[in-house]
């Protein structure tokens, strides 16, 4: 088996005294799309926050590109090539659409993604580039959030609930763009509550339940019944 791009090894995570993750392990190979599914509060977002360095973890619990980055702060993790699209989009409200994208690229990591390429990926944004980011629809804001993360030319893109609060047609539109992102060389980890959407997009699926991995496998091999059992508990 080749060395994976990202390996999470027996990760524990805490909010104060509350333990959110218990020995979670996960692998992402280069060019792969991994979906992390699970009910509310299963620890999906916490897992992404640990990988992105928002929450500090044990040094060797997260290995990226052959290096341990568990203790690295978020600003150093993004410099290594992991970008997070945070839950709820969290655009910078006093920055315009284009400024949001530019600040995503402020580290100037070399790679395929530039402003024109982002506007090519999400044509709806080009016309609105100088508008305040708050004036956009939810779907457009989500596109800005994804574009902002891509501007750092990540090797690994983490997407936290990108379908949250969006109309199904908009969700389909955004998911339809993911293959072009993978084609440019980024691996993806998508956290989703929308299981059908996640299964369609992913190669590998991990199902979290109360902070533990309840099920892991290739998306094509998992049946509805096994997923249902892992999702809700037996």
């Amino acid at each position, binding site marked *: 088996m080749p060395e994976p791009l990202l390996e999470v090894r027996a990760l524990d995570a805490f909010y104060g005294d509350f333990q959110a993750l218990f020995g979670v392990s996960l692998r992402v190979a280069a060019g792969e799309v991994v979906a992390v599914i699970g009910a509310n509060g299963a620890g999906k977002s916490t897992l992404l926050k640990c990988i*992105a360095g*928002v929450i500090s973890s044990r040094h060797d619990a997260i290995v990226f590109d052959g290096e341990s980055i568990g203790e690295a*702060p*978020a*600003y150093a993790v*993004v*410099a290594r090539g992991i*970008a*997070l699209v*945070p839950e709820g989009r*969290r655009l*910078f*409200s*006093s*920055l315009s659409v284009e*400024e949001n994208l*530019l*600040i*995503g690229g*402020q*580290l100037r990591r070399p790679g395929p993604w530039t402003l024109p390429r982002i506007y090519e990926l999400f044509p709806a944004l080009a016309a609105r580039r100088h508008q*305040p*980011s*708050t004036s956009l629809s939810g779907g457009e804001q989500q596109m800005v959030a994804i574009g*902002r*993360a891509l501007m*750092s030319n990540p090797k690994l893109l983490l997407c936290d609930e990108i379908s949250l609060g969006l109309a199904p047609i908009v969700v389909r539109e955004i998911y339809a763009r993911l293959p072009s992102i993978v084609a440019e060389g980024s691996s993806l980890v998508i956290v989703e509550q929308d299981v059908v959407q996640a299964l369609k997009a992913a190669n590998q699926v991990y199902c979290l339940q109360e902070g533990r991995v309840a099920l892991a496998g290739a998306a094509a091999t998992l049946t509805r019944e096994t997923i249902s059992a892992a999702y809700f508990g037996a």
Partner: protein
Amino acid sequence: MEWINIVIQGVLIGGLYAMFAAGLALIFGVMRLVNIAHGDLIVLAAYIALMTTDTLGINPLLAIVVVVPIMAVIGYGLQRALLNRTLGDDVLPPLLVTFGLSVIIQNALLEFFTADSRRLRAGAIEVASFPLAEGVWIGVLPLLQFVVAVAVIGALQLLFYRTAFGRAFRATSDDQSVAQLMGLDNRHVFALAMALSLAVIAVAGVFIAIRTNFDPAIGPARLIFGFEAVIIGGLGSMWGTLAGGIILGVAQAIGAQINPGWQLLAGHFAFLLILALRPEGLFPKVKG
């Protein structure tokens, strides 16, 4: 004619207040830190200007190019070594620490420079003036100070809204944790903001030192003027702080004309009036 003169004097001094305010607004905007030591840092800049002119024998106005980088370095170091450690969810620690810093700076200045009133001598420019119209005279130094203030405010506005540097400040101000996801180390961003803030008040400190007598105890009053100008102007734009400074300056000048004892009182009244009628200031920050 007399009143036109007074309003003009008020406008010109307002430029100085705007520089106090811009430094305060900048760091409050970026990191929600209320710097109680702000006024004392202005006085510190005045003393550094005094030492510079004494040792190098240069014109005080030229000393600006020395004082500005010194204050910027002090600002960066102060933020990295001390103030960053006080920032968090609680607003009280930075208030207490900067209050303590204010006391320390005042007493250190007292120890080194004594309580004597000092003043920088800039030569003939101090008393030079020219007629604008029949009976309306403008002092060259106040005018220069105002022009410099407008240039500083304009430069800050450009920096904030037209450069990558300013984008980083605004992003950090909007959402610290997401800014880190963009690769911004907020400890460094905050330190740059403090460096910029002290660079601005370094300019103000030199002009104060030329225009009026100063001693180690005058800092807190400058802090109040800065606060009032920020609140009158609002946090939405650097031009707002300029407007705030000018309104405060004009109010003080008019008050002083009516009765010399009313100078400060009139300024405070103008501030209270704005606070009561328009608490978000004249140029409020647009909420996202």
